[in-house]
Every structure is written in structure tokens, then in C-alpha cells.
């Protein structure tokens, strides 16, 4: 009698596990396809896209590295993402601190506008955007892009920081202020270090967005400043008939972020889950 429910439970559990395993495999299958085929010459890919390579070749990678300007695009992606994310962390944490601490009608209004702006799709302002900022873009498109990311990212980041800072007792600031610390010192020395968990969330959410963004870079960047998604797209468009090279290019495109994810997996998941529930 007592055996039965337990048995039933373990059967249920194995079924769940089986379903989960099949699903998990199907989730990574496309990447597996890319991986396997990137080492094959073209005829072999056509003959059987699922098989492991018989003739193992690095040539696809040599070609792809060169044709998609891999290292240049990678550097551009890293520079643009790093600077935008750091800038966003600095300005939005400070703005959120200001908004959370001075509770006037004015600051409440600003906060409301920031939150409301999050449902404005970029497409709604893309056309005037390009004509307004053409001169700035032609001056230095990478710096311009970082500037744009600050403008588009500041609302969500501020929102995330705001929720967290509201829970830090005000007495903390007051005590420090009595000790003679200035506002900036209070913020950077006392408050900002306490924001570490949100800072991780803000960094991850923004980094994923900016690293993978396509539309804005497509409008703003030129061939020598293009980021990885752009160069991958252009490369694939040109060489999609060269299956092996195209696959090598795709593998190279996904490699940096997947590596990064596998190293920082826990931070990714917890960062996203705490960011999402806000």
C-alpha cells in the first residue's frame, strides 16, 4: 500500500525527465547542426547535414574569420557593449537615487514618464531619429551609438535601481550626512556598493540587449565599425551558398556569448529573474 504512491511518483518523474531531456536536446539541436557542419566541406553537408564530419577541415573557419572581419567586429561589439553598459550603470543608478530620495511631484512625474516610455517601440521614432542624428552619426558613429544606448536604456535601468533603492533606509544617508559627507560621497561610498545585486541585473540585461541589437547598429554603423550581429548577417547573405563557411561564421558569432554564459551562468539566471519580477 505504501509502496504504490512512491512508485507512481517515480514513474511520473521519469516521464517528466524524458520529456525534459527530449525538449532540451531539441533546444540545442540547431547549435549542434551549426557546430557539426562548420567542420565539413560543402558536398558533405549536402549529403547528410546531421552526420559528424568525415573529412575534417579548418578551412571554413579561416575563410569566415577573414571574410566577416571577425576580430574587428568582435572588438567593436566588445567596445560598444562595455562602454554603454558602464555608462548606463553610472547614470541610471545616480538618477534612480535622486528620484527615490527626493519625493516631490516633479520627481514622481519624471519617474512616470520614464516608465511610460518603455512601451514606445524604437520603430515609432526611427524615421525622425535618423534625420535628426545624421550629423552626429557621421561625426563618430560608435560614440553616437553608445550615446543612443544610454538614452534608450536609461528608463529600464533606472526603474530597476529605483525599486531597490527605495528599500534602503533613508536614515543611512542622514547619518552619513551628519558626519559631513557630501551627496556624491554618500552615494558612491555607501549606497552604490549596496546596489551590487541590481547592478548585476542591470549589467546583464543591458549587455544582452546591446550585444545582440541589430536594427539600430544597422542604421548607424559603417563597415569598419560594424558589430558581430551585423557582420554575421551580411556575411551570411553573401556566402549562404557556401554552407561550410556560413556555418563556421555562425559558430564564431555565437561562441563569445555562449562561453560567457557558461562561465557566469548563475549570475545570468538570477540577474534575469530578479529583473523580470520588478
Amino acid at each position, binding site marked *: 500500500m505504501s509502496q504504490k504512491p512512491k512508485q507512481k511518483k517515480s514513474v511520473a518523474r521519469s516521464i517528466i525527465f524524458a520529456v525534459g531531456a527530449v525538449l532540451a536536446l531539441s*533546444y540545442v539541436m540547431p547549435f549542434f547542426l551549426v557546430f557539426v557542419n562548420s567542420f565539413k566541406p560543402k558536398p558533405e553537408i549536402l549529403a547528410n547535414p546531421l552526420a559528424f564530419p568525415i573529412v575534417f577541415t579548418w578551412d571554413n573557419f579561416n575563410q569566415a574569420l577573414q571574410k566577416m572581419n571577425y576580430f574587428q567586429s568582435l572588438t567593436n561589439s566588445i567596445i560598444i557593449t562595455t562602454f554603454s553598459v558602464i555608462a548606463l550603470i553610472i547614470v541610471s543608478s545616480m538618477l534612480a537615487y535622486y528620484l527615490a530620495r527626493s519625493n516631490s511631484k516633479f520627481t514622481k512625474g519624471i519617474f512616470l514618464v520614464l516608465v511610460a516610455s518603455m512601451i514606445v517601440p524604437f520603430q515609432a521614432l526611427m524615421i525622425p531619429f535618423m534625420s535628426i542624428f545624421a550629423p552626429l552619426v557621421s561625426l563618430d558613429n560608435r560614440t553616437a551609438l553608445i550615446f543612443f544606448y544610454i538614452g534608450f536604456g536609461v528608463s529600464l535601468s533606472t526603474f530597476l535601481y529605483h525599486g531597490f533603492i527605495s528599500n534602503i533606509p533613508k536614515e543611512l544617508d542622514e547619518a552619513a550626512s551628519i558626519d559631513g559627507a557630501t551627496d556624491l560621497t554618500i552615494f558612491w561610498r555607501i549606497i552604490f556598493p549596496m546596489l551590487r545585486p541590481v547592478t548585476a541585473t542591470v549589467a546583464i540585461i543591458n549587455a544582452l540587449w546591446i550585444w545582440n541589437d541589430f536594427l539600430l547598429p544597422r542604421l548607424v554603423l559603417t563597415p569598419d565599425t560594424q558589430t558581430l550581429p551585423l557582420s554575421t548577417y551580411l556575411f551570411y547573405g553573401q556566402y549562404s551558398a557556401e554552407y561550410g563557411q556560413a556555418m563556421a561564421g555562425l559558430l564564431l558569432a555565437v561562441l563569445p556569448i555562449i562561453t560567457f554564459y557558461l562561465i557566469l551562468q548563475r549570475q545570468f539566471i538570477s540577474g534575469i529573474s530578479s529583473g523580470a519580477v520588478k
Partner: protein
Amino acid sequence: MQFGKHLKKFIFFAALPLAIFAIVLVYPFIQGLILTFTNFDGFEATKFVGWDNYVKSFQDPTFWSTLQFTGAFVVVSLVAINVVAFGLALIVTSKLRSSNILRTFFFVPNLIGGVVLGVIWQFIFNSALTSLATKFGWNSMTESWLNETGSAFWALIIVTVWQSSGYMMIIYITGIISIEQDVLEAARIDGAGALRTLVSVKMPLMAQAFTISLFLTLRGGFMAYDVNVALTGGGPFRTTELISMHIFEDAFRLGNFGTGQAKAVIMFLLVAIAALVQVSVSKRMEVQR
């Protein structure tokens, strides 16, 4: 004195980000609203033309078919993503020893941008599947899914679900974990089965997770662009263009900046109305529990 102190604090802490926000987002947005009533040609607007651009937009038959296609895409992807994501969350939280690995796998597509994903799947639909179908004689699959509007729609849905369900899964996992064990214990003692507990206890208690996930998928559906461009490119014959891509093509490829911007404003209104309705309905359900 007091005001001076406030002003100083405002300048140090808030002036810069607010200025950038206003320049990058608010100003072009307002400008965009005004431009829809002018004869804007991409460089300058010389005169006001009233509602012309909106009238022309609604007279454009491709815009209507885009709206239909987008509507279908938003509804189907919203339902599919959330059903799949909720299912994945249930699997991952069912206390399997392998749940961490499963979660890692499910989340991977989300790390990668829509363009790269779209291109990967283009290879799968156009080359991998067709060559496998030819080899094994699956006659219904030898033609690429992307060559025909109906199947290309489902291809878009598959890729979108695959991409976004991992993210929404995280939201649902957070919701499931936040449910207190006592409540579940109480349900069990009262004799509720697994399904009953899920529907009557767990789901109402995690209503907030549904609100968030539905909002994000709704917005994502309207704004979808990357996968669209990379997977179908709008083809065959502009029949699989979602609204984002339609606006981009209208303005930057065909040079119709006036109608392009009018359509963009229409898109904004659709997103805003849909999001407001969804959030207020979901919020009401949260309260009712």
C-alpha cells in the same frame, strides 16, 4: 537655500541622464508625431498635409495584409510562447536532479540575437531539412517551408517560441518558487491532486508572473524584427512582413517617409492600447485571487 541645494543635487545626479533621455527618445518621438502631418521626405518637411499620410497608409493594401499577418503572429506567438515557457518551468521545478542542466539548455537560444538565430534556422529550413527530406523521401518536406506564406508563418512562430520561451521560463520559475510551501502542503492535506493544485493554487498565486510574461511577449510580438528579416526577409513577395519590417521597408527602401512614419505611429498606438488592456485585465486577475 533649500532650493539651491535641491538644484545642485538635480544637476549632479539627474540632469545628464534626463537630458540624454530627452534628446534621444522624447524629442524624436514628438517630432515623429508632428511629421506624420507634413510632407516629410526624409530630409525636410515644407508644409502641413493634415491626415493625408494616415489616409494613404490605410489605402495601402500591403499595409492591411501586414496588419493581419502581425495580428496573427502576435496572438499565436503569445499563446505558444507562454504555454511552452510555463511547461518548461514546470519541468525544471519538478525537483529533477538534472533540472539545472535542463534550465541551462532551455535558456541558450535567448542569449543569441534574433538575426543570428534567424540565419541559423534559414539554413535548417532551406538546406538541412530539404536535403534530409530528399534523402529519406519525405515528399511533403522537400520544398522549403520558407517558400510559401502559410508555412513561413509557422517557421517564424517556431523560431520565436524557441528563442523567447527560455526567458519567459525564468519568469515562471521565479513565480513558482515564490509560492510558500505551507500553502502547497495545505492543498495536499486537503486532498488536491497535482493538476488541481496547479490550476487552483499555484497558478493564481503566481498571477504576477503571467502578467509580466504576457506583457513582454505581447510587446515582443509587435516589435519583432530581427528574426523576420533574417529568416524570411519578408518573402515570398512581401507576404511575411511583420509591421516593424513593413515600416522599415516603406521608409528606407521605398522612400515613403510620410506614410512610413504614420504607420509607425499606428504601430505605437496598437502596442500601447494592447499593453494597457492586457496589463489592466491581468492586474484585475491578480487582485481577485
